[in-house]
């Protein structure tokens, strides 16, 4: 098996298909741990994982925290409200302070694209990107891949449509890299104002017609629409957005029978996804949440570089 040799996980753009495969395979092993009565392994015992969140987040932060705890790491949460950044401290200084407390892994979410790269360069600790601006959200894309592969038994050749605010979406960008590297065909769909320029050069098909994105698709990944976008001329009103882009049971009539619907959450019911669809048979939204923990365990494990033994060996010692 290919060895992991990266200090950080900053995004999927830089990863090879093989590295993504390694993460997913590692995550499958941890999924098995999560089915045990005692859902904990000692892999990261004595290590410290700090969650640095500069944007509100419930599920991603909880998911990382739980993942770290399931690996027996000590965890620490720092949120923007408590942080001293508001006192004018620059990000790098703050991170260096945290590193000086002998933190092994820093998990960061930050509103500025590239902020994780900035930290990774400045620190010896591992840095895991939990979402940086509109740039990348690699663990979300990885858990999406895991969820799709579990159900479809493959990624290669699948047709996946990512629908919504592509322009501002880090989930879309990481998704595009991850899916295309593993051989899926990706379509992005949204109002023209929310499709970034030259996005087709990322190797995706582009449309503003929802029917085109649904027809023939194996998977839909619906993005959360941020309600404040209507105030800056991206679209007239949320009402009109829903009229043209909400995935409803009627619009799914022409969809494949085995369609999967993903959503990174939190969902806006009735805006990008109709309630019946969110709760319906196509939806794998809750699988995504469960898989998020396994994927994040895999990432924390890999970047922590637990000796050079493979994950299987470590799991054995936990029995």
């Amino acid at each position, binding site marked *: 098996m290919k060895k992991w040799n990266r200090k950080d996980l900053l995004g999927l753009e830089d990863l090879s298909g093989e590295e993504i495969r390694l993460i997913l395979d590692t995550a499958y092993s941890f999924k098995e741990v999560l089915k045990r009565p005692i859902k904990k392994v000692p892999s990261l015992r004595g290590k410290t994982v700090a969650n640095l969140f500069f944007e509100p987040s419930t599920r991603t932060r909880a998911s990382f925290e739980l993942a770290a705890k399931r690996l027996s790491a000590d965890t620490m949460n720092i949120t923007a409200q408590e942080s001293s950044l508001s006192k004018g401290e*620059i*990000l*790098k200084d703050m991170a260096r302070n945290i590193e000086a407390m002998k933190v092994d892994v820093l998990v960061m979410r930050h509103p*500025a*694209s*590239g902020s994780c790269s900035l930290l990774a360069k400045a620190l010896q600790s591992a840095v895991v990107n939990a979402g940086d*601006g509109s*740039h*990348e959200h690699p663990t979300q894309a990885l858990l999406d891949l895991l969820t799709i592969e579990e159900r479809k038994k493959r990624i290669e050749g699948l047709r996946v449509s990512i629908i919504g605010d592509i322009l501002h979406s880090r989930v879309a960008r990481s998704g595009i890299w991850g899916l295309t590297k593993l051989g899926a065909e990706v379509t992005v769909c949204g109002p023209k104002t929310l499709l970034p320029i*030259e996005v087709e050069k990322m190797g995706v098909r582009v449309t503003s017609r929802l029917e085109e994105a649904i027809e023939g698709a194996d998977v839909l990944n619906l993005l959360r629409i941020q309600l404040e976008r209507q105030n800056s001329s991206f679209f007239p009103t949320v009402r009109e957005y829903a009229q043209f882009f909400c995935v409803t049971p009627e619009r799914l009539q022409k969809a494949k029978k085995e369609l999967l619907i993903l959503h990174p959450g939190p969902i806006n019911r009735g805006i990008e996804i109709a309630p019946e669809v969110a709760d319906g048979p196509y939806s794998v939204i809750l699988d995504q949440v469960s898989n998020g923990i396994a994927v994040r365990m895999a990432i924390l494990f890999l970047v922590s570089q637990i000796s050079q033994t493979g994950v299987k060996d470590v799991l054995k010692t936990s029995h």
Partner: protein
Amino acid sequence: MSSKLLIKGGRILDPANRRDDSGDLLIEKGKIAQVGGRLSANGAEVVQAEGLWVVPGLIDMHVHFRQPGREDKETILTGSRAAVKGGFTSVLPMANTHPVADNRGAIEFILAEAKRAGLVNIFPVGAVTQGLQGECLSEIGELALAGCIALSDDGKPIRNTKLMRHALEYASMFSLPIIAHEEDPYLFEEGVMHEGHASTVLGLKGIPAICESIMVARDLELLKLTGGRLHFAHISTARSLELIREAKKKGLAVSCETAPHYLVLTDEALSAFDANFKMNPPLRGEADQKALTEALKDGVVDCIASDHAPHTSQEKETELDTAAFGIIGLESSLGICLTYLVHKNILKPSELVARMSWMPAKVLGLRKGTLSVGADADVTLINPEKKWTLRSEELESRSRNSPFIGWEFKGRAEMTLVGGHVMMKDGKVGRD
């Protein structure tokens, strides 16, 4: 130093007089006394210049010296030192200081500091509008009396079209050119880098090319109406150049500059999220870069100016969204141009000297940029073959925000003379 200096055996490049031959140059009492052929020393101090170019002192018509207000980034003294180190004998600091250089007092302060530094000719640019607010005209007549030779709100566009019309009309009474920083504020919004495939991949807010050209188009329309003199600062896009080319054909009194970084870097450089590649206008795409190179060759781009913009490290070593725009350029400008324009056969030596000295002088109505007999003895000696590396610890500027640190260049200034005085020799700055 004696009051006579003989520069012997260099290659004299004086585009104003179409001179490009080897010979001697005699300086007497701060002026060019004799040029060309073999001259005898007659008691003059002799500078051997074999293998060197002897050119009219370089003029950087676009710098930011930050004094008054942000002396932690640069002062008139440190900026002057950086200028002569880079081979420049005249510079035009922009008006966006704190307080803004929009009144006689501020201009007189800058001139007094310049005199105290005593290294380089400083021609302060006055603000077009009071406080750079874009609302009321500065006292432009007073600024002219105080010694301003150009006006600019650089750093900010003039968004009010009527005000821009009046500025062009009013400034023309004093024969002052307006140097326009072209940017549509709505298209710019909170942009960080050029809008293109790179910004899409990086998830950074884009500044579209049209953000510049739409304002270039507007101001060319205004110029047709008002007359006056218009100079476009730091042009970065192909479409702007097309518009300017057309306007020049029609005989409008328009000129423009670009900066060295637009010629050697593109938006792809932002992929490391290093804020030393963040400037405004932003690094553009390859097609824009090509168009700029072409326009430099055919003369649509009149001048090369560095847009020297010093910032502290804490303003640069930060997220791209919050980092300051701009890079320092005085000490890299000539090296970049020699390496990537002259040695790559894009510009002939005399063409480069024109873009960096004679043309800026012409645009500004300065009696400089030439080695004519009787002209001020502002002279730069350039070793075009000298290989060197730009090192952080060797910079004279107070700031270190350059993406070119660590780059190797071919060609640099060996000596800078201002008014007949040696201000820099072999990289060492100081009045003789």
